């Protein structure tokens, strides 16, 4: 008896909510959250058409484009790993100060005294390596399918840039723990960049924020890692995704 009364109240409440101006302002006319969803071709279209997903996906794609054996999901996985890295990275930022005196200790404390600190740092690290791998494999997949051929030439160029940004993001993150592994890996890496012809010394100086790796380098790479490179990467990602659709969806079957 009490149950029936309660559920009646609930359905009345949900009707009132769905008829309210607030609800109508949140969900577009035609949204499945306004009029409910039953499986029909029209509603399948509405799911995409009346949601933010319409920015990413068209309503329909070629049948072969959804075959996992064609794409191996590699591009999507790269993007998803980027999201995962952003989420875990924001968590890490709460507990980290990019100075030579505090960085290493902050991570030590994060791992031992912060709830889920160790787990989230592990996830950030492993997801980063996975992303480098998946972006690389995505490139190989696109090459072997000849998907860089007209009209997709320029999207390939953007893709190679994205691979480089991924490597740079990973490399700038490598220094941040400020342990022996970080310091000497980055020493090897930046020494190599110092051999750039003509202005090698200047390149190295700008990258290190000085003549040697130090606390200035840490601040510089931190800013690059958490702000500048993700910002640039997101812009290139947006162009990459937009071009995929404008160039006629993903490349055809072989």
């Amino acid at each position, binding site marked *: 008896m009490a149950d029936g009364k309660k559920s009646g109240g609930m359905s009345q409440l949900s009707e009132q909510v769905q008829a309210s101006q607030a609800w109508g302002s949140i969900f577009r006319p035609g949204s499945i959250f306004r009029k409910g969803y039953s499986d029909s071709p029209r509603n399948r279209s509405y799911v995409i058409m009346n949601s933010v997903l319409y920015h990413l996906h068209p*309503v329909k794609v070629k049948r072969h484009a959804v075959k996992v054996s064609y794409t191996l999901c590699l591009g999507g996985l790269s993007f998803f790993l980027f999201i995962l890295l952003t989420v875990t990275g924001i968590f890490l930022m709460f507990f980290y100060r990019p100075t030579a005196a505090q960085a290493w200790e902050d991570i030590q404390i994060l791992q031992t005294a912060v709830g889920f600190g160790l*787990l989230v740092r*592990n996830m950030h*690290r492993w997801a980063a390596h996975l992303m480098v791998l998946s972006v690389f494999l995505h490139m190989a997949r696109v090459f072997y399918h000849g998907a860089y*051929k007209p009209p997709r030439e320029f999207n390939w160029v953007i893709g190679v840039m994205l691979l480089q940004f991924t490597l740079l993001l990973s490399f700038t993150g490598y220094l941040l723990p400020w342990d022996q*592994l970080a310091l000497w890996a980055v*020493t*090897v*890496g930046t020494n190599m960049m110092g*051999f750039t012809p003509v202005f090698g010394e200047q390149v190295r100086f700008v990258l290190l924020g000085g003549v040697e790796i130090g606390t200035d380098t840490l601040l510089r790479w931190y800013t690059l890692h958490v702000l500048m490179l993700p910002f640039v990467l997101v812009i290139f990602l947006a162009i990459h995704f937009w071009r995929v659709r404008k160039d006629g969806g993903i490349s055809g079957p072989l």
Partner: protein
Amino acid sequence: MTEIPEHLRKRAEAAKAKAKAAAGGDTPAADAPSADAAGGTAPAGDEKIPSHLLDRGTAAADMPAIPAGASAVPAGGSGPDGHNQRLLTVVKSGSIQDTRAMPVDKVHVWPHLLVAEFLAALVITLFTLLFSIFVNAPLLELADFNKTPNPSKAPWYFLGLQELLTMFHPMVAGVTIPGIGLFLLIMAPYIDKNPSKRPEDRKFAISLMTIHLMFWSVLVMIGSFFRGPGFNFVFPWNAGLFFEL
């Protein structure tokens, strides 16, 4: 022939059946007086067509029976057989319209693509989570400028470059070779003019890329697993592993 989608075909059939049922309801009523069909439909038409137009129409219909030059012929028909349209040209549908010879077979993004994407995201999250529960990210002791680890290694994806450093002058290994490699990679679509995407037509491109990828993979492997103290060549099963991720 294009295959008509199931739901459209069903809708068309339903509409056809409905129209037939409606027509079936009308014709017995028209046939019942056993008058001719024209007599049955004409009274219905009378209500809507203005009388002066109807007069002109009947006059035109009677025209063949009336001798040529009779006053009943309307002024409109000036061409042969009373028609006043001329055929200027025939435009074939393919010449100005973009008609698709082969319809593209498409599926809805929801659910076909979104479900696959969601599952892939779920799987990779689970994998990362489980891996992170069981394997810890390395955190060595505090950075120390006075204590150079032996060997010092770059991150794994740069170990191919570090490997090249053992063979060439740093400017060649660290800048020239990767620079040229990257440039060629970016320029690939503009260098490779072969329009075909079929693997059997692009043996050269595929071989070249495979060699390129193998080259870097092998260098990274050697740098990762086969380089010990002093970055000297070692076998990991003898000297142990000198590799941190």
